[in-house]
């Protein structure tokens, strides 16, 4: 076991434990806080995979925007946060069986695939992944169309969210 592997196992255990607490929490504010822990663990994985920009974006977008937005929504739907009605619906056994079956299937597929034991390709030391990502996002040979479509999608979502949540009296 190298120190990197021990770090991986620790971060994975914290992330998965936090995700389980999200699913299991009775209080919604606690669920949102555990969700932040889980997002932080995923950001550590991005950093371990040499995707520094994504690690920072994960912290800024998921923890800074999405989780805070969820906490706002929980506060605005206040009396459901600590209610004592059952957490799970009537099909929870089916859901559990489906989730476990999916996990078992994915693990079986991963372990039976010959490429699963590959180790990372050496990164080209002259190429900086962040500047590569930046130029790929705005170059016409790269992903500029998807980039612009994503910005239109965000604008549409902004206007749509305002329209839906608007309180017309």
């Amino acid at each position, binding site marked *: 076991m190298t120190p990197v592997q021990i770090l991986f196992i620790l971060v994975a255990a914290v992330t998965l434990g936090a995700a389980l607490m999200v699913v299991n929490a009775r209080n919604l504010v606690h669920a949102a806080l555990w969700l932040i822990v889980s997002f932080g663990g995923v950001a550590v994985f991005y950093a371990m995979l040499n995707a520094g920009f994504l690690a920072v974006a994960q912290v800024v977008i998921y923890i800074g925007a999405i989780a805070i937005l969820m906490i706002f929504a929980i506060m605005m739907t206040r009396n459901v946060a600590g209610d004592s009605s*059952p957490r799970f619906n009537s099909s929870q056994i089916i859901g559990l069986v489906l989730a476990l079956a999916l996990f078992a299937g994915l693990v079986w597929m991963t372990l039976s695939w010959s490429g699963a034991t590959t180790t990372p390709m050496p990164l080209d030391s002259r190429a900086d992944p962040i500047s590569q990502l930046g130029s790929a996002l705005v170059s016409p040979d790269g992903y500029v169309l998807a980039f612009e479509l994503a910005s239109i999608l965000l604008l549409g979502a902004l206007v749509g969210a305002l329209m839906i949540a608007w309180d017309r009296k």
Partner: protein
Amino acid sequence: MIPLSWYLIFAAALFSIGLFAVLARRNAIVILMGIELMLNAVNINLVAFWRYVNPELIAGQVFAVMVFAVAAAEVAVALAIFISIYRRRRSVSADEIDLMKW
């Protein structure tokens, strides 16, 4: 060195936990949290394949950035819908929102 399968199995576990939240929880906001966990699991897979299989092609990271943008848009619209539903029905429980169920 960490083999690729560790990342894939971790992502599978995170995805399954999110799937269970979506299928079994009653509160719509926790269902949304489950969807976010599933999107995070997919992103881990995308970045892991980028790093382990072909780091010269930046496509894996670009895909992950697109997933970020779509997740942000989805959360904004979904929470607006929940607030609107709560204002009318005083509840965001997914099994009570059944107006369009036949």
